[in-house]
């Protein structure tokens, strides 16, 4: 029988948490495998994230969420510099409409200050008029948190994965974990692509973290999906607001927000609905209505005509706090579960925490001298000037070959995205923005399919939206 290599650490899930952990671990002399059931990283929970880098204003000081959010907010800046990501420190405003709400803002402020959130201040009506002219004039004050920011959630995942890969981590996509056998010591991980062995297993399986954990006999938590519907506005509305706009939070969520994004298009949402089905990514009429009402309470000028796209995401919620722990009942198994908001922000801090747990539990972490901390920044014509574009076109004619007209994406960017790992139409969309504009891919789909087909030597009929079963076409036209 062929012998199966034993990885030092095996990470289940290539969302932002798994990717951040893999990248952090790749600093050390370890063999690392990342298993992802989908065709590409970031295709689970992470793809429908709002992209907000939270300042830490809405989590108790004693919680993992609070501590890791605050730490992640700092780490994300360094990661963005190293990995060539556009992090924008937009700042956030939590808006109050009544005197009572101002009292609540003061409570939030003092709790956040205990946690250590920097730069908080209460701003008045005059400040709001000056700095946020489209805000509902009935707003009387807001809590301003300058350290809030925005980032592209999927490009963050891709950057982390690419860098981890460069530093030796191995990625296995379309590899679904079916069972885990505790071999004392170590684990055998049975997957849809065969068996893997590892000394340590990190469960970052998002919505499926409970089921994965149960495979090693730890079943004391349940992931309860909480749906969030979000609606994307035309990028003509980029300057609708100057900050992220929040209402006062409710018990279960931060409420309906007006969100700036790293790509320009504002977004409104999300809803917070408990659902049973972990695959229920549908949007509803009620969802639209609710989001629309909530968003217009903050910015009354938002119109339904501004909406160009919408989607649903599922938060992998489990109780009030993150579950990040070494399982003594299955030594070598670490659960990283229930990572809902502020999970994206916290991910880099979670990664460091997991490394700390591994070290404490006896894994030797010896730094690589040749760790490559940087990644070359991918070029996106949509966020550079025309004079820079002109220079690029002279270097490579492919930058002048525009594929996606709504978002101005060139053939060269698409080819680079495929070189970096895109294998599906969604993968191209998340990396380049092609198909994400107002025409929704009507004009560029065929060209993108052809580029993907040529570069990956795949027939056009096998090109998928997001993996097997989602082929764009049903076959070739039958010639009579």
């Amino acid at each position, binding site marked *: 029988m062929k012998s199966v290599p034993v990885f030092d650490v095996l990470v289940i899930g290539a969302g932002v948490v798994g990717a951040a952990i893999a990248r952090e671990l790749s600093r050390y002399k370890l063999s690392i495998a990342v298993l992802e059931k989908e065709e590409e990283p970031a295709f689970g929970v992470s793809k429908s994230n709002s992209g907000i880098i939270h300042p830490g204003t809405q989590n108790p000081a004693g919680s993992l969420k609070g501590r890791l959010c605050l730490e992640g907010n700092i780490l994300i800046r360094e990661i963005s510099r190293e990995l060539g990501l556009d992090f924008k420190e937009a700042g956030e405003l939590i808006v109050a409409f009544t005197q009572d709400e101002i009292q609540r803002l003061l409570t939030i402020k003092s709790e956040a200050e205990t946690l250590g959130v920097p730069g908080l201040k209460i701003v008045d009506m005059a400040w709001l008029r000056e700095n946020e002219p489209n805000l509902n004039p009935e707003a009387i004050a807001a809590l301003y948190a300058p350290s809030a920011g925005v980032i592209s959630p999927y490009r963050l995942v891709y950057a982390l994965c690419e860098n981890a890969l460069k530093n030796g981590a191995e990625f296995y996509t379309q590899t679904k974990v079916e069972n885990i056998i505790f071999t004392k010591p170590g684990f055998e991980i049975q997957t849809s692509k065969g068996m893997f062995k590892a000394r340590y297993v990190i469960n970052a399986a998002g919505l499926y973290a409970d089921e994965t954990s149960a495979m090693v006999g730890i079943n004391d938590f349940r992931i309860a999906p909480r749906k969030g519907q979000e609606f994307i506005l035309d990028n003509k509305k980029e300057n609708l607001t100057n900050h992220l706009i929040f209402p006062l939070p409710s018990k279960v969520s931060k409420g309906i927000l007006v969100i700036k994004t790293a790509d320009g298009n504002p977004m409104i949402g999300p809803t917070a609905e408990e659902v049973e089905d972990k695959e229920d990514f549908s949007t509803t009429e009620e969802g639209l209505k609710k989001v629309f009402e909530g968003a217009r309470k903050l910015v009354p000028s938002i119109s339904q005509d501004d909406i160009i796209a919408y989607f649903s995401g599922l938060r992998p919620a489990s109780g009030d706090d993150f579950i990040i722990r070494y399982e003594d009942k299955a030594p070598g198994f670490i659960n990283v579960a229930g990572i809902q908001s502020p999970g994206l922000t916290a991910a880099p801090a979670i990664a460091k925490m997991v490394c700390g747990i591994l070290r404490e539990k006896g894994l030797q972490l010896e730094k690589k001298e040749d760790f490559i901390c940087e990644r070359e920044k991918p070029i996106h014509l949509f966020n550079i000037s025309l004079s820079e574009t002109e220079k690029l076109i002279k270097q490579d004619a492919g930058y002048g*070959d525009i594929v996606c007209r709504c978002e101005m994406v060139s053939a060269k960017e698409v080819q680079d995205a495929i070189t970096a790992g895109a294998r599906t139409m969604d993968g191209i969309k998340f990396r380049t923005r092609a198909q994400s504009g107002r025409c*929704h891919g009507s004009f560029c789909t*065929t060209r993108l399919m052809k580029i993907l087909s040529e570069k990956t030597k795949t027939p*056009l009929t096998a090109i998928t939206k997001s993996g097997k079963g*989602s*082929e764009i076409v049903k076959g070739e036209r039958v010639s009579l």
Partner: protein
Amino acid sequence: MCEKDLVIVGAGPAGMAAAISAYESGVRDILLLERDQYLGGILNQCIHTGFGLTYFKENLTGPEYAHRFIKKINAIKEIEVSLKSFAVHLTNENVLTYIKPGALEKIKAKAVIMATGARERTREMVHIPGTRPAGIFSAGLAQKLINIEGLLPGREVVIIGSGDIGLIMARRFILEGAKVKAVIEIQKQSRGLTRNVVQCVEDFGVPFYLSHRIAKIHGKNRVEKVDVVRVDEHLHEVADSMFSIECDTVLISVGLIPENELIEMAGAVIDKKTNTPVAQEINKTSIPGLFVCGNSFKIYDLVDSVSKDSIHAGYQAAEYIRGLG
């Protein structure tokens, strides 16, 4: 920065007619930009007949109709054609920037005609709830996949909306051996031409549901089914009227919206509802020397009318240039 008398953006039926007419009206320094690799625009994928009945008094296919103009354009050496050329910026002084493989060019034009056509309204613009699997296409994209790329987008199709492209695609899918299970139209009557309703839907026995709309799209990886409901005269859902249709493909044919992002960038006044330029006279904008013709000026039913009005745009631009002295 180089200079040109007239720059025309878009070489579909509108742009080509405007270019020829401007030449015939005396303009001798014309640049015609086309983002695709060939002239003719969307006509190239419209392989059905019905074009030219009023303009040429003949029944032509889209490519045949386009070819008559392409031949003329190619014969006029004063019309410089630049393919794979994508306009990215326009100012209110008619300075136009475009890029093409290998170059970025900036041109000061005496007059500009925008003949940029239209895009299809999307599922998102009519807020159809549900999932977002593979198998949801704009009717025009499905047409391109079949007629240009030789691919079959789906086998069991439901068409949402009864715009002309959707109706024509009903017949096209059937001819390719696919099953068209329904055309669903929210209004009481078809949006498309009567001849298309008769020849593309009724003649093939396709169920045509008027006063109905899609309540939800289902499917994880690929479309699996749609829920349909009847609506009353206020377009409100009729209680207990829901039924489902199994299908693997949904075509969206809910109208066109003019592409006027560049003139908006230049500062021309735009009607937010229709996305068309606000102007006193056909083909004009609020910016002197900036003209818009064809489907970017307003949505036409027939290409014959596009040609007629775009010829007028070429003439208007020539007059304007002459007036500058």
